[in-house]
């Protein structure tokens, strides 16, 4: 049962920040509500004030940027990103990830900012954004802060947002030449949360097949989306062979800290990591060669 709350609908970011600063602990922010309402309906979250920011159109956009690459407003829906020609052309892995996220109904109303701020370790966007070296901007009445998406989630469902702060934008840099990025997740049924999610981004040196840079980011394998840096280090600077990717998978499976739950055991999740890092790595490599 949802408990009664006072409902506030700021029209601008400034209004929203003022309300958020004013009501602080007693308030919750709602955008699409696709994560929050599920908890509120069970009485697990019961704020006194609900600040609805879904209508703040100034935060709903997908824009190219000469310097940054791609700028996505925090209130952009998953479906908008999935269908955006701009995203499909230059950042296809983002559209592919959004296509695997929940179901169409959820994607039509839920926002990428809401997803990142909910900080579910099984979330799809975070590993992909981390593999793409994405950054984000937060705002409060005091000003703005920037940080890597990698540093945003601190723990299960906890972010680096400070009181009075809202996430306002995500920036995705354009990929350097010879870069390929791929994402997949293992789930029990279509539209389910990830049992394990894997994103790999590989940048090759021109013509020599040497891995100039690699990022491997996992979802649902630790308290937050995480990079497996030892696995990355095993590949970076070397010529990528089938064995090398297999090795990366083995190392990654030892770096993660998955939990056992009703869906899968810790051991099974480690095995999924071992196999999927290899598999997604292969796909990323193939894309890097084509790029």
């Amino acid at each position, binding site marked *: 049962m949802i408990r009664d709350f006072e409902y506030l609908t700021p029209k601008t970011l400034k209004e929203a920040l003022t309300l958020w600063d004013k009501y602080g602990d007693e308030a*919750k922010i709602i955008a699409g509500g696709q994560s*929050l309402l*599920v*908890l509120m309906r*069970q*009485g*697990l*979250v*019961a704020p006194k004030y609900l600040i609805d920011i879904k209508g703040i159109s100034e935060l709903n956009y997908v824009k190219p940027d000469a310097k940054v690459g791609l700028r996505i407003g925090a209130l952009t829906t998953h479906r908008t990103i999935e269908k955006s020609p701009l995203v499909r052309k230059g950042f296809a892995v983002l559209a592919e990830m959004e296509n695997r996220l929940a179901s169409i109904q959820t994607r039509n109303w839920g926002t990428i900012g809401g997803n990142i701020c*909910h*900080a*579910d*370790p*099984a979330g799809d966007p975070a590993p992909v954004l981390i593999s793409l070296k994405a950054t984000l901007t937060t705002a409060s009445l005091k000003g703005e802060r920037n940080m890597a998406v990698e540093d945003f989630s601190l723990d*299960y*469902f*906890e972010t680096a947002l400070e009181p009075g702060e809202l996430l306002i934008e995500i920036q995705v840099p354009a990929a350097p030449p010879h870069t390929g990025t791929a994402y997949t997740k293992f789930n029990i049924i279509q539209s389910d*949360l990830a049992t394990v999610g894997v994103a790999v981004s590989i940048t090759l040196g021109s013509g020599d097949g040497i891995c100039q840079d690699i990022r491997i980011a996992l979802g649902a394998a630790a*308290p937050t989306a995480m990079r497996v840096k030892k696995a990355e280090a095993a590949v970076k600077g070397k010529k990528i062979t089938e064995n090398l990717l297999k090795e990366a998978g083995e190392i990654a499976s030892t770096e993660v800290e998955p*939990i056992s*739950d*009703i869906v899968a055991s810790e051991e099974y999740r480690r095995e999924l990591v071992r196999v999927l890092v290899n598999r997604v790595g292969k796909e990323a490599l193939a894309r890097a060669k084509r790029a």
Partner: protein
Amino acid sequence: MLMEGKFTLKAPIQEVWDFLLKPETLASCIPGAEKMEAIDDKTYESVVKQKVGPISVKFKFTTKITEVDPPRHLKAVGQGADIAKAGTFSQETTVDLTEISKNEVEVSYSSNVSLVGRLATFGERIMRAKAKSVGEEFTRNLQEKLKSRTTG
């Protein structure tokens, strides 16, 4: 969910035992415990507050020492209901002391915690992960409490 472990303390076994026997020792190790009140020499009531992301819980918790075999074995059980009626939390902890020398004792513990109710069903994904870290914090607190009481 079961948490087990052991550690060594440089203290005489009787001193560690006497300290453990005080119900407030175990009650105060529960992460988020505040407002503790002794009901009798074996029972303690506390309010436990915890937060995981958007979910905040406040349990009214009772800890009771049920088994004693001085100075070696102790068992305590605890139960708490969430003030918002979202779930009940129970724990069963046994602590065993083994004398290594006159001034050294091995403490081995086993703690079984469980959560029932809406928090467990709908909050499962969120709470389960947290339960692991709360359990770890509990045992860390126990270790620190025993160390700080029995040194010097």
